[in-house]
Protein backbone atom coordinates (compact mmCIF):
# COMPACT_ATOMS: atom_id res chain seq x y z
CA UNK A 1 0.00 0.00 0.00
CA UNK A 2 1.75 3.15 -1.13
CA UNK A 3 0.69 6.09 1.02
CA UNK A 4 3.09 8.71 -0.24
CA UNK A 5 6.15 8.73 -2.38
CA UNK A 6 8.39 7.89 0.58
CA UNK A 7 6.50 4.81 1.76
CA UNK A 8 8.87 2.33 0.20
CA UNK A 9 11.73 4.31 1.66
CA UNK A 10 10.29 4.06 5.16
CA UNK A 11 9.94 0.32 4.89
CA UNK A 12 13.47 0.01 3.69
CA UNK A 13 14.80 2.12 6.53
CA UNK A 14 12.76 0.20 9.09
CA UNK A 15 14.26 -3.04 7.86
CA UNK A 16 17.71 -1.54 7.94
CA UNK A 17 17.20 -0.25 11.46
CA UNK A 18 15.84 -3.54 12.75
CA UNK A 19 19.17 -5.06 11.85
CA UNK A 20 21.12 -2.34 13.65
CA UNK A 21 18.92 -2.52 16.73
CA UNK A 22 20.18 -5.92 17.72
CA UNK A 23 23.43 -4.32 18.78
CA UNK A 24 21.67 -1.96 21.19
CA UNK A 25 22.07 -2.58 24.92
CA UNK A 26 19.22 -2.54 27.44
CA UNK A 27 18.85 0.77 29.28
CA UNK A 28 19.55 0.55 33.01
CA UNK A 29 16.61 0.86 35.37
CA UNK A 30 16.88 4.23 37.07
CA UNK A 31 14.48 5.54 39.66
CA UNK A 32 11.76 7.31 37.72
CA UNK A 33 11.42 11.05 38.20
CA UNK A 34 8.81 13.32 36.79
CA UNK A 35 9.70 16.49 34.98
CA UNK A 36 7.90 19.75 35.51
CA UNK A 37 6.19 20.82 32.32
CA UNK A 38 6.31 24.48 31.42
CA UNK A 39 4.41 25.64 28.36
CA UNK A 40 5.38 28.96 26.81
CA UNK A 41 2.61 30.54 24.79
CA UNK A 42 1.16 33.84 23.60
CA UNK A 43 -1.85 35.27 21.90
CA UNK A 44 -0.05 37.30 19.32
CA UNK A 45 2.84 35.94 17.28
CA UNK A 46 6.35 37.32 17.41
CA UNK A 47 6.25 38.48 21.03
CA UNK A 48 9.27 36.39 21.99
CA UNK A 49 8.07 32.88 22.90
CA UNK A 50 10.92 31.19 21.14
CA UNK A 51 13.51 33.60 22.49
CA UNK A 52 12.22 33.08 26.00
CA UNK A 53 12.00 29.29 25.68
CA UNK A 54 15.46 28.84 24.25
CA UNK A 55 17.21 31.18 26.65
CA UNK A 56 15.33 29.83 29.61
CA UNK A 57 16.39 26.35 28.59
CA UNK A 58 20.01 27.48 28.45
CA UNK A 59 19.94 29.17 31.83
CA UNK A 60 18.13 26.40 33.61
CA UNK A 61 20.58 23.85 32.29
CA UNK A 62 23.44 26.06 33.39
CA UNK A 63 21.86 25.92 36.83
CA UNK A 64 22.31 22.19 36.69
CA UNK A 65 18.82 21.20 35.61
CA UNK A 66 18.21 18.57 33.00
CA UNK A 67 16.10 20.46 30.49
CA UNK A 68 14.29 19.37 27.36
CA UNK A 69 12.84 21.94 24.99
CA UNK A 70 10.01 20.66 22.85
CA UNK A 71 9.32 22.94 19.91
CA UNK A 72 5.61 22.39 19.52
CA UNK A 73 4.95 25.47 17.46
CA UNK A 74 3.12 23.64 14.71
CA UNK A 75 2.92 26.68 12.48
CA UNK A 76 6.29 28.38 12.53
CA UNK A 77 8.66 26.15 14.46
CA UNK A 78 12.09 27.69 14.60
CA UNK A 79 13.81 26.96 17.91
CA UNK A 80 16.32 24.83 16.02
CA UNK A 81 17.03 27.73 13.69
CA UNK A 82 17.58 30.09 16.61
CA UNK A 83 20.06 27.60 18.08
CA UNK A 84 21.72 26.98 14.75
CA UNK A 85 21.25 23.26 14.81
CA UNK A 86 19.90 20.96 12.18
CA UNK A 87 18.40 17.92 13.79
CA UNK A 88 17.80 15.02 11.44
CA UNK A 89 14.47 14.26 13.12
CA UNK A 90 11.74 16.48 14.43
CA UNK A 91 8.27 16.36 15.83
CA UNK A 92 6.74 15.57 12.47
CA UNK A 93 8.71 12.33 12.38
CA UNK A 94 7.45 11.48 15.83
CA UNK A 95 3.86 12.14 14.88
CA UNK A 96 4.28 10.16 11.70
CA UNK A 97 5.71 7.30 13.73
CA UNK A 98 9.03 7.39 12.00
CA UNK A 99 10.91 7.74 15.26
CA UNK A 100 10.28 8.11 18.97
CA UNK A 101 10.43 11.34 20.94
CA UNK A 102 13.60 10.01 22.53
CA UNK A 103 15.17 9.46 19.15
CA UNK A 104 14.31 12.97 18.10
CA UNK A 105 16.24 14.48 21.01
CA UNK A 106 19.35 16.43 20.07
CA UNK A 107 21.91 18.38 22.06
CA UNK A 108 21.53 22.13 21.79
CA UNK A 109 24.08 24.85 22.60
CA UNK A 110 24.05 25.71 26.29
CA UNK A 111 23.62 22.14 27.44
CA UNK A 112 19.95 21.36 27.04
CA UNK A 113 18.27 18.90 24.72
CA UNK A 114 15.72 19.72 22.10
CA UNK A 115 13.07 18.14 20.00
CA UNK A 116 12.85 20.31 16.95
CA UNK A 117 9.50 21.37 15.62
CA UNK A 118 7.93 20.91 12.27
CA UNK A 119 5.95 23.47 10.40
CA UNK A 120 2.63 22.63 8.88
CA UNK A 121 1.63 19.81 11.20
CA UNK A 122 -2.06 20.37 10.84
CA UNK A 123 -2.76 16.64 10.87
CA UNK A 124 -1.99 16.64 14.63
CA UNK A 125 -5.68 17.22 15.20
CA UNK A 126 -6.59 14.01 13.45
CA UNK A 127 -4.41 11.50 15.24
CA UNK A 128 -5.65 7.94 15.16
CA UNK A 129 -6.15 5.90 18.35
CA UNK A 130 -2.93 4.12 17.69
CA UNK A 131 -0.97 7.32 17.18
CA UNK A 132 -2.38 8.79 20.36
CA UNK A 133 -1.40 5.82 22.44
CA UNK A 134 2.06 5.86 20.99
CA UNK A 135 2.57 9.56 21.60
CA UNK A 136 1.37 9.24 25.19
CA UNK A 137 3.75 6.41 25.92
CA UNK A 138 6.59 8.45 24.60
CA UNK A 139 5.60 11.53 26.57
CA UNK A 140 5.74 9.44 29.72
CA UNK A 141 9.21 8.24 28.92
CA UNK A 142 10.32 11.79 28.32
CA UNK A 143 8.88 12.87 31.65
CA UNK A 144 11.12 10.42 33.40
CA UNK A 145 14.14 11.61 31.57
CA UNK A 146 14.34 15.28 32.58
CA UNK A 147 13.84 17.78 35.40
CA UNK A 148 12.02 20.23 33.26
CA UNK A 149 10.30 20.12 29.90
CA UNK A 150 9.80 23.44 28.20
CA UNK A 151 7.23 23.54 25.43
CA UNK A 152 7.35 26.36 22.90
CA UNK A 153 3.81 26.42 21.54
CA UNK A 154 2.50 28.34 18.61
CA UNK A 155 0.72 31.63 19.05
CA UNK A 156 -3.02 31.58 19.63
CA UNK A 157 -5.05 28.67 20.90
CA UNK A 158 -5.81 26.08 18.29
CA UNK A 159 -6.82 22.62 19.51
CA UNK A 160 -3.22 21.44 19.38
CA UNK A 161 -1.79 24.25 21.43
CA UNK A 162 -4.57 23.84 23.95
CA UNK A 163 -3.62 20.23 24.50
CA UNK A 164 -0.11 21.18 25.50
CA UNK A 165 -1.34 24.03 27.68
CA UNK A 166 -3.81 22.14 29.82
CA UNK A 167 -1.27 19.36 30.17
CA UNK A 168 1.43 21.65 31.55
CA UNK A 169 2.26 22.29 35.18
CA UNK A 170 2.73 25.92 34.44
CA UNK A 171 1.76 28.14 31.56
CA UNK A 172 3.91 31.10 30.75
CA UNK A 173 1.91 33.57 28.68
CA UNK A 174 4.24 35.99 26.91
CA UNK A 175 3.07 39.44 25.90
CA UNK A 176 4.55 42.81 25.05
CA UNK A 177 3.24 46.26 26.00
CA UNK A 178 1.64 46.53 22.57
CA UNK A 179 -2.16 46.84 22.88
CA UNK A 180 -2.86 44.03 20.40
CA UNK A 181 -0.47 41.72 22.23
CA UNK A 182 -2.23 42.52 25.49
CA UNK A 183 -5.73 41.82 24.22
CA UNK A 184 -4.53 38.61 22.56
CA UNK A 185 -2.87 37.52 25.79
CA UNK A 186 -6.18 38.00 27.56
CA UNK A 187 -7.92 35.91 24.88
CA UNK A 188 -5.48 33.04 25.44
CA UNK A 189 -5.92 33.14 29.19
CA UNK A 190 -9.66 33.12 28.75
CA UNK A 191 -9.65 30.10 26.45
CA UNK A 192 -7.23 28.18 28.62
CA UNK A 193 -9.29 28.85 31.73
CA UNK A 194 -12.35 27.53 30.01
CA UNK A 195 -10.65 24.23 29.24
CA UNK A 196 -8.77 23.47 32.40
CA UNK A 197 -9.14 23.91 36.12
CA UNK A 198 -6.61 24.77 38.71
CA UNK A 199 -4.06 25.95 36.17
CA UNK A 200 -0.93 27.84 37.07
CA UNK A 201 -0.85 30.68 34.57
CA UNK A 202 1.83 33.37 34.67
CA UNK A 203 2.27 36.47 32.59
CA UNK A 204 5.68 37.43 31.28
CA UNK A 205 5.96 40.90 29.79
CA UNK A 206 8.65 41.08 27.13
CA UNK A 207 10.27 44.02 25.36
CA UNK A 208 9.59 46.58 28.04
CA UNK A 209 11.46 49.83 28.80
CA UNK A 210 11.56 49.11 32.53
CA UNK A 211 9.91 47.03 35.19
CA UNK A 212 7.29 49.73 35.79
CA UNK A 213 5.97 49.33 32.31
CA UNK A 214 5.75 45.57 32.79
CA UNK A 215 3.84 45.96 36.03
CA UNK A 216 1.39 48.31 34.36
CA UNK A 217 0.77 45.77 31.61
CA UNK A 218 0.32 43.01 34.16
CA UNK A 219 -2.12 45.11 36.18
CA UNK A 220 -4.26 45.73 33.12
CA UNK A 221 -4.42 42.06 32.14
CA UNK A 222 -4.96 40.88 35.71
CA UNK A 223 -7.71 43.45 36.18
CA UNK A 224 -9.63 42.33 33.13
CA UNK A 225 -9.15 38.64 33.99
CA UNK A 226 -10.38 39.14 37.51
CA UNK A 227 -13.43 40.97 36.28
CA UNK A 228 -14.48 38.59 33.53
CA UNK A 229 -12.95 35.26 34.47
CA UNK A 230 -12.87 35.44 38.20
CA UNK A 231 -9.22 34.43 38.23
CA UNK A 232 -6.02 36.17 37.28
CA UNK A 233 -2.61 35.03 36.10
CA UNK A 234 0.36 35.57 38.34
CA UNK A 235 3.19 37.89 37.51
CA UNK A 236 6.12 35.97 36.04
CA UNK A 237 8.49 38.83 35.39
CA UNK A 238 9.70 41.07 32.64
CA UNK A 239 12.38 41.17 30.00
CA UNK A 240 13.81 44.47 28.89
CA UNK A 241 13.76 45.41 25.26
CA UNK A 242 17.34 44.91 24.18
CA UNK A 243 18.91 45.26 20.73
CA UNK A 244 21.26 42.41 21.60
CA UNK A 245 18.33 39.98 21.44
CA UNK A 246 17.67 40.38 17.70
CA UNK A 247 21.43 40.61 17.21
CA UNK A 248 21.91 37.21 18.81
CA UNK A 249 18.99 35.83 16.80
CA UNK A 250 20.72 36.92 13.64
CA UNK A 251 23.89 35.21 14.81
CA UNK A 252 21.77 32.20 15.63
CA UNK A 253 22.93 31.98 19.22
CA UNK A 254 20.90 32.16 22.44
CA UNK A 255 21.40 35.70 23.71
CA UNK A 256 22.28 34.58 27.23
CA UNK A 257 25.30 32.86 25.70
CA UNK A 258 26.15 35.54 23.19
CA UNK A 259 25.66 38.51 25.54
CA UNK A 260 25.56 37.13 29.08
CA UNK A 261 25.85 40.54 30.71
CA UNK A 262 23.19 42.30 28.68
CA UNK A 263 20.05 43.69 30.36
CA UNK A 264 17.85 41.06 28.70
CA UNK A 265 20.13 38.28 29.97
CA UNK A 266 19.88 39.67 33.50
CA UNK A 267 16.09 39.55 33.30
CA UNK A 268 16.30 36.03 31.92
CA UNK A 269 18.50 35.05 34.81
CA UNK A 270 15.98 36.26 37.36
CA UNK A 271 13.16 34.52 35.56
CA UNK A 272 15.10 31.28 35.47
CA UNK A 273 15.73 31.37 39.21
CA UNK A 274 12.11 32.06 39.96
CA UNK A 275 10.96 29.21 37.73
CA UNK A 276 13.53 26.86 39.16
CA UNK A 277 12.15 27.37 42.65
CA UNK A 278 8.70 26.38 41.47
CA UNK A 279 10.01 23.58 39.36
CA UNK A 280 11.58 21.81 42.32
CA UNK A 281 8.14 21.17 43.79
CA UNK A 282 6.12 19.71 40.96
CA UNK A 283 2.46 18.97 41.28
CA UNK A 284 1.57 15.34 41.36
CA UNK A 285 -0.59 14.82 38.31
CA UNK A 286 1.82 13.79 35.62
CA UNK A 287 1.57 14.95 32.10
CA UNK A 288 0.29 11.66 30.92
CA UNK A 289 -2.94 11.73 32.77
CA UNK A 290 -3.84 15.21 31.69
CA UNK A 291 -2.60 14.60 28.21
CA UNK A 292 -4.85 11.57 28.12
CA UNK A 293 -7.84 13.73 28.97
CA UNK A 294 -7.06 16.01 26.09
CA UNK A 295 -6.26 13.29 23.64
CA UNK A 296 -9.39 11.32 24.33
CA UNK A 297 -11.68 14.28 24.87
Amino acid at each position, binding site marked *: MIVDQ*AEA*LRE*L*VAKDRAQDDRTHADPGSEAPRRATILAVTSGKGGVGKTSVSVNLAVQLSQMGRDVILLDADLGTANADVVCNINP*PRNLSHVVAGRCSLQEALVEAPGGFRMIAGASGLAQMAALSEFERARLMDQMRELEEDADLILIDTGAGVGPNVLGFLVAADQILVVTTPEPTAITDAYAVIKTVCRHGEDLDIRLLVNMVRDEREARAVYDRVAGVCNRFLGVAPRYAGHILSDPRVPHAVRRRQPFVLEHPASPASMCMHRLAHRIDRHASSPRGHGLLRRMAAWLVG
Partner: protein
Amino acid sequence: MSAVKHLVSQMMHQQKAAAAPSSLPKGLSQQYAALIQQEVASELADEVVNKVRHQLSEEELHDEEICFKAVRRELVRYLPIDADASEFKPSKDGRPRTIALMGPTGVGKTTTIAKLAATFKLKHKKNVALITLDTYRIAAVDQLRTYAGIIGVPLHVVARPQEIQKALNLCKGCDVILIDTAGRSQRDDARLTELTAFLDAAKPHEVHLVLSSTCSQTVLMEAVQRFSQVRTDRIIFTKLDEAVTFGVLLNVLDKADMRLSYVTTGQEVPHQIEPGCPNRLADLVLGQQVGERSDS
Protein backbone atom coordinates in the same frame (compact mmCIF):
# COMPACT_ATOMS: atom_id res chain seq x y z
CA MET B 1 9.96 -4.03 -61.01
CA SER B 2 12.00 -5.19 -58.02
CA ALA B 3 15.12 -4.71 -60.08
CA VAL B 4 14.27 -1.05 -60.52
CA LYS B 5 13.70 -0.65 -56.83
CA HIS B 6 16.99 -2.25 -56.13
CA LEU B 7 18.74 0.10 -58.50
CA VAL B 8 17.18 3.11 -56.89
CA SER B 9 18.11 2.04 -53.44
CA GLN B 10 21.66 1.46 -54.56
CA MET B 11 21.80 4.94 -55.96
CA MET B 12 20.57 6.30 -52.69
CA HIS B 13 23.19 4.30 -50.92
CA GLN B 14 25.97 5.72 -53.02
CA GLN B 15 24.78 9.26 -52.65
CA LYS B 16 24.63 8.89 -48.87
CA ALA B 17 21.77 11.28 -49.09
CA ALA B 18 19.16 11.63 -46.39
CA ALA B 19 17.44 8.30 -46.38
CA ALA B 20 13.74 8.52 -46.92
CA PRO B 21 11.85 5.72 -45.17
CA SER B 22 10.22 4.52 -48.33
CA SER B 23 13.51 3.97 -50.04
CA LEU B 24 14.99 1.91 -47.20
CA PRO B 25 15.00 -1.84 -47.07
CA LYS B 26 12.01 -3.07 -45.10
CA GLY B 27 13.86 -4.12 -41.96
CA LEU B 28 15.69 -0.86 -41.64
CA SER B 29 12.83 1.40 -42.59
CA GLN B 30 10.88 0.07 -39.64
CA GLN B 31 13.65 1.07 -37.26
CA TYR B 32 13.95 4.40 -38.99
CA ALA B 33 10.25 4.99 -38.52
CA ALA B 34 10.57 4.14 -34.84
CA LEU B 35 13.38 6.64 -34.43
CA ILE B 36 11.44 9.39 -36.17
CA GLN B 37 8.35 8.57 -34.16
CA GLN B 38 10.41 8.93 -31.00
CA GLU B 39 11.42 12.36 -32.28
CA VAL B 40 15.03 11.54 -32.80
CA ALA B 41 16.44 14.44 -34.83
CA SER B 42 16.23 13.46 -38.48
CA GLU B 43 19.94 14.18 -39.09
CA LEU B 44 20.75 11.82 -36.26
CA ALA B 45 18.33 9.17 -37.44
CA ASP B 46 19.76 9.40 -40.94
CA GLU B 47 23.26 9.09 -39.64
CA VAL B 48 22.46 6.02 -37.58
CA VAL B 49 20.51 4.34 -40.32
CA ASN B 50 23.14 5.05 -42.93
CA LYS B 51 25.85 3.62 -40.75
CA VAL B 52 23.87 0.45 -40.22
CA ARG B 53 23.29 0.25 -43.91
CA HIS B 54 27.00 0.14 -44.56
CA GLN B 55 27.53 -2.50 -41.96
CA LEU B 56 24.90 -4.98 -43.07
CA SER B 57 24.62 -7.08 -46.18
CA GLU B 58 21.67 -6.66 -48.47
CA GLU B 59 20.08 -9.78 -47.06
CA GLU B 60 20.52 -8.74 -43.49
CA LEU B 61 18.94 -5.40 -44.27
CA HIS B 62 15.68 -7.18 -44.88
CA ASP B 63 15.78 -9.03 -41.60
CA GLU B 64 13.90 -6.99 -39.04
CA GLU B 65 15.55 -8.60 -36.03
CA ILE B 66 19.06 -8.06 -37.34
CA CYS B 67 18.29 -4.45 -38.22
CA PHE B 68 16.88 -3.77 -34.79
CA LYS B 69 19.97 -5.12 -33.11
CA ALA B 70 22.29 -3.21 -35.42
CA VAL B 71 20.46 0.08 -34.92
CA ARG B 72 20.40 -0.50 -31.19
CA ARG B 73 24.13 -1.19 -31.19
CA GLU B 74 24.74 1.96 -33.15
CA LEU B 75 22.51 4.06 -30.89
CA VAL B 76 24.45 2.95 -27.86
CA ARG B 77 27.48 4.72 -29.27
CA TYR B 78 25.53 7.94 -29.19
CA LEU B 79 24.71 7.49 -25.52
CA PRO B 80 27.75 8.29 -23.45
CA ILE B 81 27.25 7.05 -19.91
CA ASP B 82 28.90 7.96 -16.64
CA ALA B 83 30.48 4.72 -15.52
CA ASP B 84 30.78 5.92 -11.90
CA ALA B 85 27.05 6.19 -11.45
CA SER B 86 26.27 2.55 -10.75
CA GLU B 87 28.55 2.13 -7.77
CA PHE B 88 30.17 4.18 -5.07
CA LYS B 89 33.60 5.54 -5.84
CA PRO B 90 35.48 7.56 -3.23
CA SER B 91 36.98 10.81 -4.44
CA LYS B 92 40.67 10.94 -5.18
CA ASP B 93 41.46 14.02 -3.11
CA GLY B 94 40.37 12.61 0.24
CA ARG B 95 37.37 14.89 0.60
CA PRO B 96 33.94 13.28 0.81
CA ARG B 97 32.72 12.69 -2.73
CA THR B 98 30.74 15.86 -3.28
CA ILE B 99 27.93 15.90 -5.79
CA ALA B 100 25.74 18.89 -6.59
CA LEU B 101 22.49 18.78 -8.50
CA MET B 102 21.18 21.82 -10.31
CA GLY B 103 18.67 22.58 -12.99
CA PRO B 104 15.46 24.35 -13.95
CA THR B 105 12.54 24.60 -11.54
CA GLY B 106 10.47 21.59 -10.64
CA VAL B 107 12.40 19.02 -12.63
CA GLY B 108 12.90 16.73 -9.63
CA LYS B 109 16.24 17.76 -8.15
CA THR B 110 15.21 17.33 -4.54
CA THR B 111 13.42 14.04 -5.12
CA THR B 112 16.45 12.75 -6.99
CA ILE B 113 18.74 13.85 -4.15
CA ALA B 114 16.54 11.84 -1.78
CA LYS B 115 16.76 8.80 -4.05
CA LEU B 116 20.53 9.11 -4.28
CA ALA B 117 20.92 9.63 -0.54
CA ALA B 118 18.86 6.53 0.18
CA THR B 119 20.80 4.50 -2.38
CA PHE B 120 24.19 5.50 -1.03
CA LYS B 121 23.16 5.02 2.57
CA LEU B 122 21.03 1.91 2.43
CA LYS B 123 22.48 0.07 -0.53
CA HIS B 124 26.11 1.06 -0.47
CA LYS B 125 26.16 1.55 3.34
CA LYS B 126 27.95 4.86 3.04
CA ASN B 127 27.87 7.85 5.37
CA VAL B 128 25.83 10.47 3.60
CA ALA B 129 25.30 14.13 4.41
CA LEU B 130 22.93 16.50 2.68
CA ILE B 131 23.38 20.20 2.12
CA THR B 132 20.66 22.33 0.66
CA LEU B 133 21.19 25.75 -0.80
CA ASP B 134 17.49 26.15 -1.47
CA THR B 135 16.23 28.61 1.09
CA TYR B 136 14.26 30.30 -1.65
CA ARG B 137 11.31 28.07 -2.44
CA ILE B 138 8.68 27.77 0.25
CA ALA B 139 8.95 24.46 2.11
CA ALA B 140 11.98 23.36 0.10
CA VAL B 141 13.96 22.74 3.27
CA ASP B 142 11.09 20.83 4.86
CA GLN B 143 10.83 18.61 1.81
CA LEU B 144 14.44 17.56 2.05
CA ARG B 145 14.39 17.47 5.84
CA THR B 146 11.57 14.97 5.72
CA TYR B 147 13.65 12.69 3.55
CA ALA B 148 16.78 13.29 5.61
CA GLY B 149 14.77 12.38 8.69
CA ILE B 150 13.47 9.15 7.26
CA ILE B 151 16.80 8.04 5.88
CA GLY B 152 18.60 9.24 8.99
CA VAL B 153 21.22 11.49 7.47
CA PRO B 154 22.16 15.02 8.57
CA LEU B 155 20.94 18.00 6.58
CA HIS B 156 22.67 21.34 6.60
CA VAL B 157 20.93 24.43 5.32
CA VAL B 158 23.15 27.04 3.73
CA ALA B 159 21.81 30.46 2.86
CA ARG B 160 24.95 32.21 1.64
CA PRO B 161 28.06 31.11 -0.25
CA GLN B 162 30.22 32.19 2.73
CA GLU B 163 28.46 29.67 4.94
CA ILE B 164 29.13 26.69 2.77
CA GLN B 165 32.61 25.94 4.06
CA LYS B 166 31.27 25.64 7.56
CA ALA B 167 28.67 23.13 6.43
CA LEU B 168 31.29 21.17 4.48
CA ASN B 169 33.50 21.06 7.56
CA LEU B 170 30.65 19.54 9.51
CA CYS B 171 30.43 16.77 6.89
CA LYS B 172 34.15 15.99 6.87
CA GLY B 173 33.77 12.46 8.14
CA CYS B 174 31.23 11.45 5.50
CA ASP B 175 31.70 9.41 2.37
CA VAL B 176 29.30 11.38 0.20
CA ILE B 177 27.90 14.88 0.33
CA LEU B 178 24.87 15.60 -1.82
CA ILE B 179 24.07 19.24 -2.49
CA ASP B 180 20.59 20.35 -3.51
CA THR B 181 20.15 23.73 -5.13
CA ALA B 182 17.17 25.94 -5.80
CA GLY B 183 15.51 25.48 -9.15
CA ARG B 184 16.47 28.30 -11.46
CA SER B 185 15.08 29.49 -14.71
CA GLN B 186 17.75 29.30 -17.35
CA ARG B 187 16.71 32.80 -18.37
CA ASP B 188 17.41 34.30 -14.97
CA ASP B 189 20.97 35.59 -15.21
CA ALA B 190 21.11 36.97 -11.68
CA ARG B 191 20.11 33.64 -10.19
CA LEU B 192 22.56 31.76 -12.34
CA THR B 193 25.34 34.05 -11.17
CA GLU B 194 24.34 33.34 -7.61
CA LEU B 195 24.47 29.62 -8.33
CA THR B 196 27.97 30.06 -9.71
CA ALA B 197 29.06 31.71 -6.48
CA PHE B 198 27.67 28.81 -4.46
CA LEU B 199 29.34 26.19 -6.59
CA ASP B 200 32.64 28.06 -6.57
CA ALA B 201 32.51 27.95 -2.80
CA ALA B 202 31.39 24.33 -2.57
CA LYS B 203 33.87 22.95 -5.13
CA PRO B 204 31.88 19.77 -5.79
CA HIS B 205 33.58 16.93 -7.60
CA GLU B 206 30.60 16.61 -9.90
CA VAL B 207 27.79 18.90 -10.94
CA HIS B 208 24.86 17.06 -12.45
CA LEU B 209 22.37 19.01 -14.51
CA VAL B 210 18.89 17.66 -13.88
CA LEU B 211 16.53 17.82 -16.84
CA SER B 212 12.99 16.65 -17.25
CA SER B 213 12.50 14.31 -20.19
CA THR B 214 9.03 15.77 -20.67
CA CYS B 215 10.42 19.05 -22.00
CA SER B 216 10.79 19.95 -25.62
CA GLN B 217 14.17 19.84 -27.22
CA THR B 218 14.33 23.60 -27.59
CA VAL B 219 13.79 24.08 -23.89
CA LEU B 220 16.26 21.36 -22.96
CA MET B 221 18.96 22.72 -25.23
CA GLU B 222 18.51 26.19 -23.85
CA ALA B 223 18.87 24.83 -20.34
CA VAL B 224 21.98 22.85 -21.26
CA GLN B 225 23.52 25.85 -22.88
CA ARG B 226 22.84 28.27 -20.01
CA PHE B 227 23.62 25.90 -17.15
CA SER B 228 26.84 24.83 -18.82
CA GLN B 229 28.01 28.38 -18.31
CA VAL B 230 27.62 27.76 -14.59
CA ARG B 231 29.14 24.29 -14.78
CA THR B 232 27.83 20.93 -15.89
CA ASP B 233 29.64 17.60 -15.73
CA ARG B 234 26.80 15.13 -16.11
CA ILE B 235 23.16 15.04 -17.08
CA ILE B 236 20.32 13.37 -15.20
CA PHE B 237 17.03 12.84 -17.00
CA THR B 238 13.98 12.69 -14.76
CA LYS B 239 10.36 11.74 -15.32
CA LEU B 240 11.00 9.12 -17.97
CA ASP B 241 7.66 7.72 -16.87
CA GLU B 242 5.92 10.85 -18.10
CA ALA B 243 7.80 11.26 -21.34
CA VAL B 244 5.95 10.57 -24.57
CA THR B 245 9.03 10.22 -26.73
CA PHE B 246 12.66 9.55 -25.95
CA GLY B 247 14.43 10.76 -29.05
CA VAL B 248 15.06 14.14 -27.48
CA LEU B 249 17.19 12.50 -24.79
CA LEU B 250 19.45 11.18 -27.46
CA ASN B 251 19.45 14.48 -29.34
CA VAL B 252 20.35 16.45 -26.24
CA LEU B 253 23.14 14.14 -25.09
CA ASP B 254 24.53 14.16 -28.59
CA LYS B 255 24.38 17.92 -29.04
CA ALA B 256 25.53 18.73 -25.54
CA ASP B 257 28.25 16.08 -25.75
CA MET B 258 27.65 15.24 -22.12
CA ARG B 259 27.50 11.98 -20.18
CA LEU B 260 24.31 10.65 -18.70
CA SER B 261 24.59 9.68 -15.05
CA TYR B 262 21.08 8.71 -13.94
CA VAL B 263 17.52 8.51 -15.14
CA THR B 264 14.50 8.55 -12.88
CA THR B 265 11.26 6.82 -13.68
CA GLY B 266 8.70 7.92 -11.11
CA GLN B 267 7.94 9.82 -7.94
CA GLU B 268 8.55 6.98 -5.55
CA VAL B 269 11.64 7.26 -3.38
CA PRO B 270 14.08 5.52 -3.44
CA HIS B 271 13.43 2.87 -6.09
CA GLN B 272 12.62 4.83 -9.17
CA ILE B 273 16.13 5.79 -10.17
CA GLU B 274 18.63 3.94 -12.35
CA PRO B 275 22.19 4.60 -13.37
CA GLY B 276 22.18 5.51 -17.03
CA CYS B 277 22.41 2.36 -19.13
CA PRO B 278 23.03 2.73 -22.86
CA ASN B 279 21.15 -0.39 -23.85
CA ARG B 280 18.13 0.55 -21.86
CA LEU B 281 18.04 4.01 -23.30
CA ALA B 282 18.54 2.69 -26.78
CA ASP B 283 15.52 0.44 -26.23
CA LEU B 284 13.47 3.42 -25.15
CA VAL B 285 14.55 5.39 -28.17
CA LEU B 286 13.48 2.46 -30.30
CA GLY B 287 10.05 2.59 -28.78
CA GLN B 288 10.17 -0.05 -26.05
CA GLN B 289 8.25 0.42 -22.81
CA VAL B 290 9.66 2.39 -19.88
CA GLY B 291 8.79 -0.16 -17.23
CA GLU B 292 10.62 -3.13 -18.65
CA ARG B 293 14.31 -3.14 -18.09
CA SER B 294 16.15 -5.37 -20.53
CA ASP B 295 19.59 -6.43 -19.44
CA SER B 296 22.11 -7.22 -22.14
